[in-house]
């Protein structure tokens, strides 16, 4: 129990360190953003187009207003992000939205040491893998010890049934383990400043999981006739459900996606960019106007040929469409892998809990994918602004810059989603474990009664 609590405390500390690192990245990005905006406002206030040693910079153009607005969109880690600090999450902590930004080319926010990439001690790990072990250590002798020592016969003779006694002891083990886990959850919530409703949700999930493994413990103890047998069986169940099935699921899920060191994706992105720039403006404009029909009615469109400083943005429209398409393909591929992960919940409650907690905490691959989707939407909106402003064919001023800066979104916090399926799987697991355990207890109770009867006959 002490070891469990100590590891849990370590998980809370490491989780807080993780959140602090994210907040550090946000603070650095905010400073950079403020510096960039301040610099641009100074130029605009002095009536200068840009820095004196960069003659090509002109804040009267949307290209440079977009650059200096430097919109950083931070991922708000949310109050319980620390509980899933060990999640594999390959999206940045902060992203700079601009007309040429590519959120899919950005890696994760972590720099990792390959030698230490053995997973992390976070609360998801402590609850998902260690809590079942704690329940096993506390309760493996329930029932089987009585059978080994023939105490069950004595209880039968005196009380008629040992069922209630065994159930009560299993529930007590579940309550003790669940209580310890609840303490860790409340501590994690209080340290991170989460609301009581969030903490309550986390505690409920944890208690449900403790109840689930108590049911499995009851099932194991009802089946095993010796403590050694119970240890074998429970150890086997834990290894299967917490190690082997998750490992197999990870392999199957990764088989559904490209894991080629981002090679194909990077080459695709670069290839699309080169292809676009190799086309002449006369080939690009019809495609652009088909995507953005309003541009054709705007002042710049009347000029023939189009002003080269405006025409260059036509490529932005084509490239952002390619970006959205690449994102759609990637999302579809990841959706397929996510389905494997969801299906894994039916085969392993450890997967069900990990999925639920990561989604609840707003960290992990699902949250990263949602953030990338949000960024693509913002980049599309930014490109639309650049195009429409450029096609107005009017120089921009300080007011336009301020409007652009103030319209920028500040941060993004993913909303928990996709919780239903893993939660349903956990309920089914709990129900199955307890039903099997109770039925098995009834069966072994009848056997014990038979033995008691035979013993009484022999004694008589």
């Amino acid at each position, binding site marked *: 129990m002490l070891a469990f609590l100590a590891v849990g405390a370590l998980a809370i500390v490491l989780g807080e360190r993780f959140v602090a690192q994210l907040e550090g990245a946000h603070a650095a990005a905010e400073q950079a953003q403020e510096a960039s905006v301040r610099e641009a406002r100074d130029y605009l206030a002095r009536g200068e187009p840009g820095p004196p040693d960069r003659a090509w910079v002109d804040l009267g153009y949307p290209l440079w207003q977009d650059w200096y607005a430097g919109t950083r969109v931070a991922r708000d880690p949310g109050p319980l992000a620390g509980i899933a600090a060990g999640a594999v999450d390959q999206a940045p902590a902060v992203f700079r939205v601009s007309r040429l930004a590519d959120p899919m080319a950005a*890696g994760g926010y972590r720099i990792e040491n390959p*030698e230490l990439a053995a997973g992390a001690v976070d609360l998801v790990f402590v609850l998902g893998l260690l809590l079942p072990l704690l329940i096993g250590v506390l309760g493996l002798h329930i029932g089987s010890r009585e059978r080994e020592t023939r105490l069950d016969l004595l209880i039968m003779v005196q009380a008629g049934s040992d069922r209630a006694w065994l159930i009560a002891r299993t529930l007590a083990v579940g309550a003790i383990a669940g209580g310890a886990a609840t303490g860790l959850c409340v501590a994690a919530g209080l340290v991170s400043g989460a609301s009581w409703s969030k903490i309550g949700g986390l505690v409920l999930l944890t208690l449900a999981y403790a109840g689930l493994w108590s049911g499995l413990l009851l099932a194991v103890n009802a089946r095993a006739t010796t403590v050694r047998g119970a240890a074998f069986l429970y150890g086997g169940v834990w290894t299967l459900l917490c190690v082997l099935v998750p490992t197999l699921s990870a392999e199957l899920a990764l088989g559904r996606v490209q894991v080629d060191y981002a090679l194909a994706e990077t080459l695709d992105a670069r290839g699309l960019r080169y292809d676009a720039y190799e086309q002449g403006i006369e080939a690009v404009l019809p495609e652009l106007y088909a995507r953005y029909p309003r541009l054709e009615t705007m002042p710049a469109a009347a000029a023939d040929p189009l002003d080269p400083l405006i025409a260059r943005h036509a490529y932005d429209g084509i490239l952002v469409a390619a970006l959205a398409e690449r994102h759609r393909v990637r999302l579809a591929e990841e959706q397929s892998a*996510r389905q494997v992960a969801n299906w894994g919940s039916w085969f392993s409650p450890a997967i069900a809990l990990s999925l639920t907690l990561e989604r609840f905490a707003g960290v992990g*691959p699902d949250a990263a994918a949602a953030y990338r989707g949000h960024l693509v939407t913002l980049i599309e909106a930014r490109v639309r602004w650049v195009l429409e402003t450029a096609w107005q064919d009017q120089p921009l001023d300080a007011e336009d810059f301020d409007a652009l800066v103030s319209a920028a979104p500040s941060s993004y916090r993913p909303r928990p989603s996709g919780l239903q399926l893993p939660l349903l799987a956990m309920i089914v697991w709990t129900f199955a474990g307890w039903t099997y355990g109770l039925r098995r207890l009834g069966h072994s109770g009848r056997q014990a009664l038979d033995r008691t009867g035979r013993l009484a006959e022999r004694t008589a």
Partner: protein
Amino acid sequence: MLFIEGHRQGVPLHTDAGRGGSVARFARLDGAFLLQTVVPLLLIFLGAAGLAADRESGRLKLLLVQGGNARAILGGHFLILWTLALVLLLVVVTTSLLTSAVMGGGEPPPFGRLGMLLLTHALFFAVVAAASVAATVWFDSARGALLALLAGWVVATVLLPRATAGVAGTLYPLPSQDVFQAEMQAARQAGPDGHNPEDAELERLQAALLAEHGVETVEELPMNFDGIAMQVDEEFGNQVWDEHYGRLRDQLRRQGTVGSAMAILNPFQAVDHISMALAGTDLAHDLAFQAQAEGFRRTLVEALNREHAYGGSKTGDWSWEAPPEFFAALPAYEHASPALATALRPRVPDLTGLVLWLAGLLIAMRTGASRLERGQLMC
């Protein structure tokens, strides 16, 4: 994977396991997982059951009463477990090599590395087999031995590796990628900008060159000043990368020392580190690859800038193209993996740990055997 390009040192691209969904947080089903996690578990179950069955059936007592040698009995159990593990090792390694050959997975591994991989795992399995036998001798019941061994397995395979990562990260924290890149970018912007003709440092260099060649304008220079400016820009960038990546590598190496220290206590981490070193996936190989790739990038970019500057074009002549022979003569990147001895040098603590564990457990088995014979342990 690293992309080689001008103006910046490539950020290593790793496999994006996160695309597999939340299950990516669990271990992958590879050869190392089978050999270092599943096979030991099998040995623990078989080991705890084997001698315990002899003890519980009274066969062990009968053998000892009849003059059987306890050391030989325990040795026999140890050898059976170890042989089984070695057979499984050969099956996994052979299957892995065959699969790799069929799937076109490149050249087979060097004989020395493969041999060391087999030897290291043989040593590791000897540790696990010895631990299983020693536990069943020293514990009064098979139940106690099994529980102790299973607890040890959980701590060694699940808990300690993660705790090590956590402790190393706390003692020697790494910056987030965002902060690291932002700091480098800020440092980089403080230096000369090869793309900016009005950069103060480049203007000084330009004035010096004009004076040296006795001409008035850059167009009159016998070389292309743009190429020189790009190389100045590149060299300043290299200083910035060296400083920042150098600090990062030092921190990564310090984290590695925590891992090595923990590996002395945990043979599972020791074998993991050694097998990573032999497979070329450890930190030392990662850093060696990055250093070689960066060296190649610098040579390549310098050659391009030199050709731009001295290949025959004049400043401002953007229509000039280097001849195809120049590009054909550029060398391709060839990676040289560190030698076996170099790869294993940082792994000496891990190897020492494994040997010490085996020696300690063999002594425990031997002592247990003596006590069994003297009746000081239950038989």
